[in-house]
Each structure stands twice: as C-alpha cells, then as structure tokens.
C-alpha cells in the first residue's frame, strides 16, 4: 500500500495549506519588510524601494540607536540569566517530583499562559507601583519594626517614616517583567532534559565521592546543556524583540529596541527605518543561532 508520502496527490493535498499559509503570512510579509529596509520615503504616505543603504547607515551611525540595541541585549541577557537561575531549581523539583504531582506542578508553570499578557502586565504594575502590594507589605513590616523599637524604649521614629520603593519605570521593572513572562519557556526545555537524564549518572557521581554541588557542576550541568541552550534561545530572542513589557513597565526610562521599532512604524511613520532596525535585530538573532548550531555540530556526539 502506498503511504501518504509516496502518493503525490495525497502529499500535496496535505502539504499545500500549511505551505501556503507560511508563504502568504510569513515569507511574503517578511520579504516586503526586508525590501522596505532598502526604501526611501517619497512623501508622507509613499515609499519607494530604491536599494538605498541609508536606513542601515542611519541606524548604525546614530549612537542613540546603537546604545538602545546594546541596552536591549544586556537587559535580555540579564533577564535570560535570571530565568535560568530561577528555572533550574523549578525544573529539578518537577522532574524529581512523584509522578502524580508532575502534571499539577507543570500546570502551575504553564498556567500564566492562559491569561492575557496585557492583564498580567497590568497586574505586575499593581504589585510594583508606589502604592502597590510590595510597598504595602514593606510598609507594614517597617511600621511593625518601628513600633517594636518604640516599645523597647528606643523612641518613636528611629527608622524614620517609610519611603516607598520606586520599583516601576526602570530597568528593574523591565527585567522583572521579562523574567515573569518568559519563565515557562526556560522551565519546560530544562524539565524535558532533566526528566530524560539517567538518574544513575547522579548516583554514580555521588558514589565516586563527589559532593552534591560538584555533581551538579560536573555532571548535571553539562548533561543538561541541550536543554539549557534551548531555554536560552527561547527566552533571549523574544526578550530582545519585546515591546509591550518595556513599554508598560519601563516607561521612558527603559526603552528597548522593540519600542523604537514600534515607534518608527506607528508614531514616526517611517517604515523604511523601522524595517532596517527590525532586520538588524534579526541579523543579530541569526548570528546567535548560527553560533549555536556550530556549537551543537561540534558537540553532537554528547547528546544523551
């Protein structure tokens, strides 16, 4: 009997919708934007693809844009690192949890996905703002400490009045927001590799005299590298392109490249320049992925 792969008619019937979908809604718009990055504005509404490199020259030649790209990279890198540090123990706990607990714990990791990003971001604002939950909590502790100090006779205002922390509209808020939003993308690939890791490797390491910490660094970490790399890519790339989180949580103090691009397309109505900035970001991403596959190709022998 012919399989669907061998029968040409069946193959094309199955493959065409997806191919068309990708071609029309992904490849074509991307090509248009790529073309636009070599275009010039001829009037308020018209642009003409002239093959000019002026948009790229402007992006790379203006310090403010380079600075924002650089800042976007380190904010994304920091957020990715935080994700990795926080996600590893979570993934570990889930992977080593009893089987009946695993689906529940995984659900807890995925649950935030079910809520609209905008709502989650506004919720974060209500947590971080001057009169938000964190500051309420801190104030309560502060007042408590003050009254205890007063009670043991140290005067009424040793600590002074409570000054709310400024946690919104700065880099901290953006990184916290990015870590919160993209955490599941780090936990899931890590969980998958740790789950597959033969536990006897850990036991063998302990048995050979290594401490728990040594076992982690010498055995668990290298053997879960594929999951770590996947997680880093899955978190770092969306972080780099994010614009909602820095817009709402960072305000004007923590603009990222995504915000600049958005502004070019909308407020500034300069599609060619926005397109050039977008593609600069994509070239950087491709570069990172190429490095990754180079690394993966060299180490292909160690897949477990």
């Amino acid at each position: 009997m012919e399989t669907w792969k061998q029968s040409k008619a069946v193959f094309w019937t199955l493959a065409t919708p997806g191919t068309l979908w990708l071609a029309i809604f992904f490849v074509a718009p991307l090509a248009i934007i790529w073309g636009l990055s070599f275009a010039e504005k001829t009037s308020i509404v018209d642009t003409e693809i002239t093959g000019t490199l002026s948009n790229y020259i402007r992006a790379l030649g203006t310090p403010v844009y380079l600075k924002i790209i650089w800042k976007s990279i380190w904010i994304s890198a920091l957020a990715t690192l935080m994700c990795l540090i926080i996600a590893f123990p979570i993934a570990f706990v889930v992977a080593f949890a009893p089987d009946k607990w695993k689906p529940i714990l995984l659900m807890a990791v995925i649950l935030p996905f079910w809520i609209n990003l905008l709502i989650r971001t506004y919720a974060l604002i209500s947590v971080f703002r001057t009169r938000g939950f964190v500051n309420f909590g801190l104030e309560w502790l502060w007042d408590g400490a003050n009254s205890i100090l007063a009670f043991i006779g140290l005067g009424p205002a040793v600590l002074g009045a409570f000054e709310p922390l400024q946690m919104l509209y700065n880099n901290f808020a953006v990184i916290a927001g990015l870590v919160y939003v993209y955490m599941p993308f780090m936990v899931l690939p890590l969980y998958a590799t740790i789950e597959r890791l033969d536990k006897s490797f850990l036991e063998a390491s302990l048995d050979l005299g290594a401490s728990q910490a040594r076992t982690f660094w010498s055995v668990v970490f290298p053997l879960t590298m594929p999951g770590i790399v996947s997680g880093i890519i899955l978190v770092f790339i969306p972080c780099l392109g994010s614009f909602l989180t820095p817009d709402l949580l960072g305000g004007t103090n923590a603009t990222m490249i995504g915000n600049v691009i958005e502004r070019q397309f909308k407020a500034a109505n300069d599609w060619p320049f926005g397109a050039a900035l977008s593609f600069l970001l994509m070239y950087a991403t491709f570069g990172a992925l190429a490095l990754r596959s180079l690394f993966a190709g060299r180490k292909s022998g160690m897949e477990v």
Partner: protein
Amino acid sequence: MDQPIVSIENVAKHFGTVKAVDDVTFDIQPNEFFALLGPSGCGKTTLLRMIAGLEVPTGGAIVIDGQDMAATPPNHRPVNMVFQSYAVFPHMTVEENVAYGLKVTGTPRSEIGPRVTDALGMVQLAELAKRNPDQLSGGQRQRVALARALVKRPKVLLLDEPLSALDAKLREQMQLELSHLQQRVGITFIIVTHDQDEALSMADRIAVMNDGRVTQIAAPDTLYENPTTRFVADFIGKVNLLDGRVVGTEGERVAVEADRLGRITVPHEGDASGDVSLVVRPEKITLANTEPDGDVIKSQGKVTDWAYYGDTSHMFVTMDSGLVMSAKVQNTTRETVDNFDVGDTVWLSFSPSDVLLLRE
C-alpha cells in the same frame, strides 16, 4: 574469625506498605566474593543500594569496616559501585571517567595519572583511554565502570547485575575475569544477580533472598546440594520436588511415603516427622532400558518429553501414577542422544543418599 568488613544488622527498607527488605542480618568477611541472589523484586538491589548509601534504611544498621554508616552520605563511604546501566559519563572520555572519582576528592594530580593508567590496564582498556563512551561496546563500557570504581581503592566493591546486559559468550568471559580481578586486587566484592550460574561460578558465599528476606547463606556447593528450604532448592538449578510424609524409621534411614512414588527409605540426619519435601536433582537420576539392581529407588515410566541442550538432554519421564520426573542425561558420546526417545519405556533410578529431605 576476622572482623567482618560489612555487617548488615536487622536492616529493613519499607516503601509505603511494601517491605522491600525485611529485617535482614548477616556479615561479609574481608576479601570475600559475596553474591546476593534472588528473583527480581526480592530486595537484593535495594539492599546493595543501602550499603552504597543511595537508599536510607527504614530500620537497622549497616556497619562497614567497624563504622556505622547511618550518618555517612554515599560520597563519604569506603565503597564504590558498578551500576547496572554502567552510568559511564557520556560527556567525558574513558580516561576522564576513571579520573573523575580521584579528581573530585582532591587527589594530587601527580598521583591521578599513574592510578588511572593502572586501573585501565587492569581492565585491559589502556588503548581506549582517549575514546568517548559512545564509541565503546557494552562490554567495554562496563570495564570503564569497573576501572572507575576500582581506581578509588574501595574497601568494598558493589556490583549491581553487572553482566545482565552482555551476551552469553561475553558474560562467561567476564565471570572469569571478575573472579581473577577480585583475587588480584584483594578487596571484597558484593554482587547482585538473578542469574544462579553467575553466583555459583563466581561467589565464595551466596545469600539467597526472597520477598525481602535472606533464605539461606552458604557456599555455592552447599547451596546446591544441601538447600535448607524448598525455595532455595527450586531457585538454584533444576530440581524434582516431591511431597512426602514420614511414616517411620528403618535403622539409620527414614521411611517416607512419597506422593505417587510410593514408600521409599532415605538417610537423614536429625528429626523428621510429618509432611516433608523430597529433593532430587535431575543429574542424580539414571535412566536405563533394563531394570537396575542394587540399593536404588527405581520406577518405570514413559519418556513423554525431552529438551536438548547439546552437552546434556533433559528427559521427562511420566510414571503410571502420573508423577513426572526429569532426568538429566549427559551426552558423553555422540551416540548417547539416540539412546532414549519420546514414547520409550524406561527405568528411572537414583540412590537414596541423593534424596534430600526437607522438613517444611
């Protein structure tokens, strides 16, 4: 007797309501090749893992070289383990694998090199030192695991089903090599196995485990010829097990009414009364075409089935009473195999002294 190298004192391990290991007590002597033998799920691996410190006993104490191990984590115990899956680190070369246990415990660099070379030489892997584990066969990977454990110079080497993943030929070769290795390095080996041949051929002493308990601890020949329980008799080797009932004594011998075989008299030391089990190994039974003479227990029957193993054949003889006994025929000449065939009427006989009487 020397101080035991390992003392298992009333050790128990419960997983919920399951008693994986149930109040086990025994000692292992220095330089002994000791086997824990039993069917899967009998608790032997759990017991081994408790000695290594990878499982915490629910009760009892494990003493290694005079020291209670209760508060000692696995990385500080003077034992090393060869895992069933070998657990050779895939991201390290053979050499790095063997050096790992020395490196993590801060052994001076100048000492690591020679010790690794020694250990690899001991398991004949010197030429493969730079290889990655994925370039090794199963047997070679096992040697890496062995070298990696031995290089630590443990007081006790633990082996968890070390040969189960190897093919029959290689297994036989490794059995010999392990025995020689143990004699050469002079450390205690504790091996867990479900394969009786493995235990019988390698071990100095064997502990047979069943349902979390140790049923019998003895040297291989004692275990085979003088099992103390029906379980051990049945588990080790092939056996004809008959139910019987003691009906009296005749001089030195005990008279037993054996189920479907009739009244027989067998030598037996100690008391015997009531219901007993009779054990006759198939190789102790002789088949003949004519009625045998002398002081033997004999019966006539028909060959109803046979299994050919090359060096031996197993003949299943059914008696008129319906009793089936198996006899092992050694194929000593190339024609022996033609002596008996299915449907032949044969005489089956065995010496009374080859019948073991178990009181249970």
